[in-house]
């Protein structure tokens, strides 16, 4: 069995990295009105903006920490369609909960995503991002990017949906692993055992534990 160590050695960590880098991409760019930008252009511009923001001098200083985080939150919120993401992670269960529960869920889920990624964003250390390709089919688009980290290319794909003049992200796929599917797997299990109340409570607990950890 000893040889298993080698073959599988980095797998758990590789899989662990899945959620790590998407932070660099949770970004936003207000697109000029009346002019629909190409999805790839929109992502490119957004990533540049967010990288500029977080690598600007004084970003990590304690005095500015809160306001800077809020700034990034606002950008993230605009680029991502958290309602669409919520519906997709809940899948069939979405219709089984009340409108009020839906709203609470969207609020909590987006908070969870924002908080986990903002923490990772702050660990950004100059990784390069390459924008390779895009394909548009109707109101959906797929944009392919790569993150170059320690000489390794990490493939990262955005799934986007057009809303009015803007493309908004509803899923991120890193090394073949979809963020939405991954959360759906977790939520399905929790919903089966503890129903929607249990899921909402767990989300709340998670968010407050993140607050404790980051002091934010």
């Amino acid at each position, binding site marked *: *069995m*000893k*040889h*298993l*160590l*080698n*073959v*599988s*050695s*980095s*797998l*758990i*960590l*590789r*899989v*662990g*990295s*899945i*959620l*790590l880098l998407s932070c660099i991409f949770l970004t936003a760019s207000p697109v000029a009105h009346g002019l629909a930008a190409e999805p790839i252009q929109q992502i490119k511009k957004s990533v540049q903006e967010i990288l500029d923001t977080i690598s600007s001098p004084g970003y990590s200083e304690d005095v500015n920490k809160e306001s800077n985080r809020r700034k990034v939150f606002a950008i993230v919120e605009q680029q991502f369609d958290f309602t669409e993401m919520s*519906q997709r992670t809940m*899948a*069939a269960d*979405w*219709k089984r909960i009340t409108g009020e529960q839906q709203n609470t869920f969207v609020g909590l889920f987006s908070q*969870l995503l924002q908080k*986990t990624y903002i*923490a990772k964003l702050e660990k950004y250390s100059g990784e390069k991002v*390459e924008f*390779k390709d895009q*394909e548009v*089919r109707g109101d*959906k688009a*797929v944009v*392919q990017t*790569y993150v*170059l980290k*320690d*000489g390794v*290319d990490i*493939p990262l794909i955005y*799934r986007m949906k057009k809303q009015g003049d803007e493309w908004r992200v509803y899923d991120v*796929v890193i*090394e*073949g*692993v*979809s963020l*939405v*599917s*991954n*959360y*759906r*797997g*977790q939520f*399905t*299990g*929790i919903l089966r055992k503890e129903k929607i109340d249990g899921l909402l409570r767990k*989300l709340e607990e*998670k968010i407050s534990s*993140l607050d404790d950890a980051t002091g934010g």
Partner: protein
Amino acid sequence: MHLRSMKSLIVGLVGILLFVNAPVMADSKFDAMFAEDQPLKLEDTHESTISDPLEPINRAFFAFNDKLYFWVLKPISTAYAAVLAEDVRVCVRNAFSNLLAPVRIVNNLLQGKIGNAGIEVVRTVINSTVGVVGLGDPAASEFNIRPKEEDLGQTLGRYGIGNGIYICWPLFGPSTLRDTVGMIGDGFLNPVNYINEDFIGSVAVSSGNRVNDVSLRLGEYEDFKQAALDPYVSLRDAYYQYRKARIEDRDEMKPALSGAQKEDAIHVSNPPVLALEAPGKCFFIHIGTCIDEAQVAVFSKRLEDLSRSAVVRVYERNDYRFFGIETPVTGTFSVAKKQEVELASLGFTSAILVVR
């Protein structure tokens, strides 16, 4: 060694008998991406991912691995990272990766990817010589020849063998029945297992590799855990999705390339359903036209079997679109002409030489 090989053979046969099912291969570049999307909306389907009858035991081992990481692996790796510079650690990683070339070569061959197997051989030669016994990776950094990661688990998956059940091994982490069989098989191709006759020696080398790997990825597991509501399920699902994409060889999983080579690489990647502009004065052999992507896949497969790459051109005419299949030629006009005749004799009756 003898006993172990018997064991793995039996496990392999049992695995094959129990879990053969039909593989689903992606047809074109982003097809999988769009296709997965369709039923996502609000359909009443519970997505079946991977069967996990051993969940209680797996969860126990997951908890064990978690503690192992925080109590043993992380402290050691942190200390190791503090002592050794990152460059050195990258070199160590490269060296181990170079050692595992036999695994990649054999599995590329088993999957009929003759070209990729050749690339792995070239990489090994370059990295073992110019790269000083694999410490550097000049094949990638100087020559832009990237590794073609394949392992026996992927090969078995390619042959249509399903995951079987999910298994979270103590020490080794997430796997499935199929991938476990694969790992045991690949173990025979891992030179580390032949360095030392004694068990302890190999374990020491393997552990060193593991510590080195972790030292380069410190913090990632914590981030992963932090984002998850149920880390066990999250990891299980991530493992499932990750392996599925690897087995299907989705284009989006292929490494990025830069500069001029990138353009070439896009040309020979198979089978992207994309209109591509070729640099001037290149010879291609047009071998047919298709009305749908299923036909494209058939053509691409036949070309792949001949170790030829397929270039797919998309033509849009008003409301319909069709695909032209071509294969690029490296060499002069006379070489191309010869290949045209050759391909025609191999059943591609409409093979015709084109210049682009």
